[in-house]
């Protein structure tokens, strides 16, 4: 059941089905969907059904499905999973473990399906797919409910920063559309999600084969009053609509016109900037005023997150690629040491003697030392000390940099807290990760920094909030703001990551 109140205006907007395309019409944003689950859970059928019922498929694609005569198991209905042939099918056969991308439009939206394998040996693929997602659909079989795998998937989603998850309880037809079965799974899922930093966690009962609650409301489940899957997805905010948060502008390159124009080119990664704003570079410590926001389509008065622009400053502060422009009172840290959670992507295990580089959004910095501290067990969320790390492991690591780089704590600002470990010799992408703590001094981290725990926040600042998802969003917002204020006061601070030791809220799975 959805835990997010449906606003009336949203319901009106959510009128679905593939409308006839309108000339020159632009869609209301893009939502990237990660689908996790295995073939057994009916993942291909669910996506296929969504495409069939709600998307702008070409007629030849529809005709192929009709003509094939392939039926969904045990029914007389077309096998919609065919629409995913070449994508999901070969992944599940183990031919490839890659992420596949598929695009479709509904009446109002562009959706991008990022399909990644869900098995444990593909943790790295799921993590890299999830890093591009705005919403994740976790699929479970109503007969099996929330499994260990669901827990592991939720942990990966949280790690890479996915804020919205949907649990699609599939095959409701096989449990007699039972409300009791659904309520139990819904309760388990909510308990599970509370451990994580999700802003919205919604459970929807569906039957992918019959189309119940996929792109139309189910008549078999009158007890379910929430939104169906597509309706829910169409309400999810598009990428690029969140312009709140502290301003960040990672500089990609410097543009010159041969005369007096010197523009810092980049994409606003958080917040917004307007002409006249003072921005500062934490690495040089220098500030300047934005005098012009240039694009080929003309100058802009302001630019919000997601816009690619060129900023001209009033004085030349000698900023170049790798710098992150920010508002002077809320800057990233010129980090010397970084504590991070890493997903080990490479088949080559961690080697303390290997040469590694750290890639941030636009910087590439030599790593002085990389230490693996512990490995996380995603199913229990417990950690065990380790100095080794292999492919698909989730590691807690400490990185000491050869020179400072502008880095944020991932849970505060997002993009400027993302990291990639690169092999200095081969250039290969070794591990992807997020900064959980950053320190400007080259000394030991961990003892020195202050952790805002969930409990601490829940007892005071967030005492008035419940476990509902709207309140959870407010909880995270307050936590972020508190962290930003503390950091501005010079306190090295982190918001509690998912607990390393089980917090006793385990639903007993």
């Amino acid at each position: 059941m959805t835990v997010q109140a449906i606003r009336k205006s949203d319901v009106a907007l959510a009128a679905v089905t593939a409308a006839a395309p309108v000339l020159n019409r632009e869609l209301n944003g893009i939502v990237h969907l990660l689908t996790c689950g295995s073939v057994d859970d009916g993942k291909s059928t669910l996506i296929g059904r969504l495409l069939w019922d709600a998307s702008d498929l070409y007629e030849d694609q529809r005709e192929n499905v009709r003509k094939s005569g392939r039926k969904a198991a045990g029914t007389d209905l077309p096998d919609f999973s065919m629409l995913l042939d070449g994508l999901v099918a070969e992944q599940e056969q183990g031919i490839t473990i890659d992420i596949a991308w598929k695009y479709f439009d509904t009446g109002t939206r562009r959706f991008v399906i990022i399909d990644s394998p869900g098995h444990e040996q593909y943790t790295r693929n799921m993590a890299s797919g999830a890093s591009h997602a705005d919403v994740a659909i976790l699929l479970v079989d109503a007969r099996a409910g929330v499994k260990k795998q669901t827990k592991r998937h939720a942990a990966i989603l949280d790690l890479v920063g996915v804020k919205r998850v949907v649990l699609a309880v599939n095959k409701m037809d096989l449990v007699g559309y039972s409300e009791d079965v659904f309520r139990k799974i819904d309760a388990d899922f909510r308990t599970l999600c509370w451990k994580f930093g999700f802003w919205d966690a919604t459970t929807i009962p569906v039957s992918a084969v019959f189309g119940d609650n996929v792109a139309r409301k189910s008549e078999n489940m009158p007890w379910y009053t929430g939104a169906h899957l597509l309706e829910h997805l169409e309400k999810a905010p598009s990428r690029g609509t969140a312009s709140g948060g502290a301003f960040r502008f990672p500089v990609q390159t410097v543009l010159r016109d041969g005369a007096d124009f010197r523009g810092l080119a980049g994409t606003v990664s958080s917040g917004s900037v307007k002409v006249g704003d003072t921005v500062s570079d934490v690495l040089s410590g220098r500030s300047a005023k934005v005098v012009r926001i240039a694009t080929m389509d003309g100058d802009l008065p302001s630019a919000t997150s997601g816009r690619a622009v060129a900023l001209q400053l009033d004085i030349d502060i000698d900023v170049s690629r790798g710098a992150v422009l920010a508002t002077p009172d809320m800057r990233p840290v010129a980090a010397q040491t970084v504590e991070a959670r890493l997903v080990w992507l490479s088949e080559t295990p961690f080697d303390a003697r290997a040469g590694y580089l750290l890639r941030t959004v636009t910087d590439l910095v030599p790593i002085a030392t990389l230490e693996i501290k512990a490995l996380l067990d995603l199913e229990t969320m417990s950690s065990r000390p380790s100095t080794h790390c292999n492919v698909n492991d989730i590691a807690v690591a400490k990185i000491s940099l050869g020179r400072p780089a502008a880095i944020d704590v991932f849970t505060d600002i997002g993009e400027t807290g993302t990291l990639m470990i690169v092999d200095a010799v081969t250039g290969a992408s070794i591990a992807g990760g997020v900064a959980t703590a950053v320190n400007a001094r080259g000394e030991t981290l961990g003892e020195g920094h202050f952790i805002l725990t969930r409990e601490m926040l829940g007892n005071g600042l967030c005492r008035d909030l419940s476990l509902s998802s709207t309140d959870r969003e407010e909880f995270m917002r307050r936590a972020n703001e508190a962290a930003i204020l503390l950091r501005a006061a010079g306190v090295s601070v982190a918001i509690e990551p998912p607990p390393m030791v089980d917090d006793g809220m385990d639903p007993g799975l």
Partner: protein
Amino acid sequence: MNAAPSHLDLLEAESIHIFREAAAQFRKPVLMYSIGKDSTVLLHLARKAFYPQKLPFPLLHIDTTWKFRDMIAFRDKTVKDFGLDLIVHKNEDGLKQGINPIDYSPSIYTDILKTQGLKQALDKYGFDAAFGGARRDEEASRAKERVFSFRAAGHRWDPRKQRPEMWRLMNGRLGTGETVRVFPMSNWTEKDVWRYILREKLDVVPLYLAKDRPTIERNGQLLMQDDERLQPKPGETVKMRKIRFRTLGCYPLTAAVESHATDLESVVAETLNAQTSERVGRLIDHDQAGAMERKKQEGYF
């Protein structure tokens, strides 16, 4: 009023970001310019990425000598209008051997005049990165393609050696002998390309617009007779038909569709209402099952 960016705004910004990353990270990039609608959008995005600076890399056109005459005229006008650097490369060995798309199978023709030609040019000029207009929605084997697609020495594409891409982090650090293909339009669809051309009022090759043109019907496909090199076989006739092209490649490997869409608006309307996906018109892909996967491994886009 909703000030949120539209999907085209977001796609444009993403492409600009990719162009800037690649230009900053690679030593000597080049833009693969094939004159068609995707190249038109690709070039426009590149100009936006570096405005007001001149493009920091040249364009490369692999000329098979079998492009439509209108395409070559459009290419030269574009280069002149925008003040671009253009490199035209032909596989002279292949042309001397007499390789052509009429007497040879599409796979042999494409391999020698396009794939080998491209490799020759990349090696000759020492480019370490080549921008292409490929999209993930074009074909199933491209659905898994990366934005930075690495090629081992000899331009071989190894699907297992591709790098995971996470968030907006773009790792372009090359190993010895490696080069990279960069696809800034990875996340665009065919419909986006047309909508964007209309929105940005971009000029396209006139062959995209319907006009009476001399055609030959062969194997159920309409071929346009662009010059005397394509002649009707016994039983075939040359007939004037009102046609246009949904996709432009090498003449005569690209089939036309009958259409009355004589302006861009009508073309876009037709495309948005299309009943078939675009590659139906590209004969090269029907040549052999799995053709694209194989061509890619050999270095074709």
